[in-house]
Each structure stands twice: as C-alpha cells, then as structure tokens.
C-alpha cells in the first residue's frame, strides 16, 4: 500500500483520539484539579489533609473487597471446574444461567435481598416455621459482603470457566499418568493453568466491590460507610466536589496499587490477563 493511503487510514483513528483526550484524559485531569483547589478555585491542600479522617473508611472498603473477592473465588473455582467438565450442551446452558442474572438491574436484585434478609423477612419466616428463632441479618457487615458476593460472582465464574474450557486435557492426563492424585492434579496442574482467568476474575470482582455504594446503603442500612458512600454523598448531597475529587483520586491510586501488588504475586505465570 502506498504511503498516502496508509496515512489516510491512520487518520480515521483521529476522531477517537480526540474523543479519548476530551472525555477520558481531561476528566481525570479535572479530578486532580478539583482535588487541589477549593470551591472558589484557589490552590489548597485542605482536601488532601482532610483525607486522614477517612482512613478507617478506606481500610474497611479494602477489607470488604478482599473478603468478598476471596469468597467469590472459593465459590467460583469449583463451579467453573464442574461446568468445564460437563458435556458441551450442558456447558452452554450453565454459562447462560450464570450470565442471565447479570442482565437484570443490580438495584432490584439487591433490593430483593433486603426482602429476604429482613428481621421479618422471607428467610426468617421460613426459619420460624421450622422452629428457629429469627436471626438478625440485614444492616450487618455480613449482609453487605453477601451483597457483593452475590452481585459480582458471575464476573469470577465466567473468566475462570473460559480459561478452563480451553485447557489442554492431555496436560491433565499427563499429570495423572505421572501419579498425581485428584488433589495434586488440581493444585499442580489445573490451578496454575487457570491463573489468567483467576487473575482477571479477581480484578473484576475487587474493583467494583471496593468502590460500591448502593450495596452498602441498602444491605448495610447506612450503619457504616464504605468509601463509595462517602464519595457519592460529596457529589449528590453535600456538594463538596473538591473533597469528593480528592477521595476519588486516592481510591483510584489505591486500586492501582492493589492491582500492581496482585500482578507481582501472580507475575510468574504465563499468559497474564490485564
């Protein structure tokens, strides 16, 4: 192809490049700008120093995110394995069933958990029928983590499954032939080979869990804040955009650091996703 038409086809990317500078890069610059200015636009470090007050909230959010991600991993790994072992037709149906809830509004699904978990809710009235005293579940930390696990579980199942479905079965057989029992095969062969799926699953569950605000509002009942709740309030209730921007900036950096740490831990594996 001659130079002119190559240049021409390079140019068709320019509207996108302009778009991404305007609507991806510029907004992030505004986050930084608002973090370091006050309401009148003058430079200040007040928003940054105010952050120390929110350190416990940040820590709680990260802790919840880690717990929810680990629970998702523990639930999803065996399920993905079982799905990948079934016949093609069953696999297709199962994947469809995993994806289906993701198309429903997560707001309604989370709300519907409220109906299940309430003190006079469905689970407690079922328990009552078999003579068990009601358990207080709603507005607890456990309820929030349950909400996270529930909402983001498909994001863990699907990437792990899609790697497992393509696993080279001769490798698994080789491992068995070399005398590996069931557990050894899983530990030494299947887990390492599914690592790319596990890593992308962890990312896809951890990031939304750390930054959520709806789940904690509904299932936590506002009894404790996650960092998403604090940010949301700055923008929708107290209109302190500057503080909100600095909180978001820190959240963004924290997540990047967490991702970098995780990538280091799984860095030896081949074929990394992300």
């Amino acid at each position: 192809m001659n130079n002119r038409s190559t240049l021409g086809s390079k140019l068709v990317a320019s509207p996108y490049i302009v778009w991404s500078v305007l609507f991806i890069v510029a907004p992030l610059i505004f986050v930084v700008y608002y973090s370091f200015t006050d309401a009148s636009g003058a430079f200040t470090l007040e928003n940054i120093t105010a952050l120390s007050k929110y350190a416990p909230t940040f820590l709680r959010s990260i802790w919840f995110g880690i717990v929810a991600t680990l629970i998702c991993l523990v639930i999803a790994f065996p399920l993905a394995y079982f799905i990948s072992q079934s016949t093609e037709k069953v696999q297709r149906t199962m994947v469809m069933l995993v994806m289906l809830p993701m198309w429903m509004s997560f707001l309604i699904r989370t709300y519907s958990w409220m109906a299940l978990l309430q003190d006079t809710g469905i689970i407690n009235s079922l328990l009552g029928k078999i003579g068990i005293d009601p358990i207080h579940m709603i507005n607890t930390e456990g309820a929030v983590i349950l909400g996270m696990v529930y909402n983001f579980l498909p994001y863990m199942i699907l990437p792990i499954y899609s790697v497992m479905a393509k696993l080279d079965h001769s490798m698994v057989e080789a491992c068995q032939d070399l005398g590996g029992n069931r557990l050894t095969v899983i530990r030494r062969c299947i887990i390492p080979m599914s690592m790319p799926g596990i890593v992308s699953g962890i990312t896809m569950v951890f990031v939304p869990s750390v930054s959520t605000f709806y789940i904690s509002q509904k299932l936590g009942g506002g009894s404790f804040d996650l960092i998403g709740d604090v940010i949301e309030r700055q923008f929708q209730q107290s209109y302190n955009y500057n503080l909100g921007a600095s909180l978001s900036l820190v959240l963004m950096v924290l997540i990047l650091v967490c991702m970098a740490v995780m990538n280091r831990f799984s860095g030896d594996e081949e074929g990394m996703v992300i």
Partner: protein
Amino acid sequence: MKTASRIYTTLVFLFLYAPIIVMIVFSFNGTSSTSVLSGFSLQWYKALLEDETTLKALSNTVVLAVCSALIATVLGTAAAVGLDKFRKGPLRSGVMAVTNIPMMNPEIVTGISMMLLFVFVGKMVSEDAVLGFGTLLIAHVTFNLPYIILNVLPKLRQTDRNLAEAAQDLGCKPVSAFFKVVLPSIMPGMITGMITAFTLSLDDFIISYFTSGPGFQTLPIAIFSMTKKRVKPDMYALSALIFVSILVLLILYNVAQAKSEEKSRKK
C-alpha cells in the same frame, strides 16, 4: 463425586436465583408487601402499564442504548482500523493505555470525573442545567468504546492485509476496498462489540447516576430513586418482564447457535 458436584452446582445456582425468584413471586402479590405473600393478583402489572414515568424511563433507556452503541461502533471501528496501521511505539501504546482506562477504573471514578468536566464546562458557558441527554450520551459512548475497539482489533489482525491490496490492484479505490473486503471480515467483531455496548448501556447505573440531570431519566436511575423509598411490587413486575424477555432471547439465540453448529458439523 458426581452427586457432590451436582449438589454444589445446584446450591450456587439457588443462591444466584434466590432474589430473582422472590422478585417474580412477589410481583403477583395481592398486597404491596415485599415480604409477606397474600393472595394472587395482576394489579402490579396493571399499575406498571399505567405508570408513565417508568414507561418514559424505559424508552429513554432504549433510545440512549441504541444511540450510544451505534456511535461507539462507528467511532470505535474507525479507531481500530487506524490503530491497526500504527507502528509499535509510544503513540500506539499510549492510545491503548488510555483505551483501557474506562475498563480498569472504578465506575464511580469514571462517573464523577466526567461529571466534574461537564459541570466545569457548564460553569464556563454559564449554563446551569448542563447535565442531560447530551452528557449521558457522551458518557455512554465513552465507556462503550473500549469494548468495540477490543473486539474489532483482533479481527483486523486475522484479516489478510494482502486482500485489501489485491482489491486495489484490481482497480478498487482504497475506500471501496475497505467496504468490500475489510469490513465484511471484521463484521463479527463489530456486532459482538455492539451487542456488548448495547447491554452495558441498558444496564448502567453508576456512571449515568453522576452524568444525568433531572430532565432525562433512564430506567436504572428511576429504579434507584424508587428504591430510596419503599419499593412497590410494580418494580418487581417490571423486572420479571425484563427477566422473561431476556430468557426467551437467550434461549432462541442458543437454539439458533446449536443448530448452526450442527449444520457446520454435518458439512
């Protein structure tokens, strides 16, 4: 082991579907309670069909999803075609890194960062009600774009470059060579990307929440403001209807796919 794995799978699916079952059952409830069942009625479905705000929000959502998916597909495909020609280097890796930002960043950060931009520009032109359909459309196109680009780029790499050259040697102008040779081969990637973009846009709450104004409500935002108060089962009725239509679509899609796979196997 077989039974154990079956019990396990059933339990996980029970967990995934418990709130959906609750939702469907209570959409037929005789009273407005969402925890005590009393009698069967279709009143919530009737209420839903008479509720103009919800129906308006539903049509807004569909309009927004169609527009943003179409714009993103055109812009994203053009971007992929151009990027494919870029030599490896800082410009290419820079653009790809920026492309990944909306997928990596927490949605709340994407949402507020755009809101800050819009509000700032709004102040500059002293327009107070800057948030509305326009800003929502920009936001949705922005978070849809990476999915188009990342679906089209691999297809472009699989396309034989010589084909477009051959078409030009045979007298095609570069533009018509693109439409006749390259476009058909990247079409599957464009369609997958567009469907993904459409569903993401339909379902998005967090980014829309920060970039929309009171003048233009989408369904997730309408649901959000309703769940601030006590939800009446008409929201359940709406979700049940959405659930059933998606289920039907998925079943049809799977049957069609299974059939076409069978056909290709017979060949």
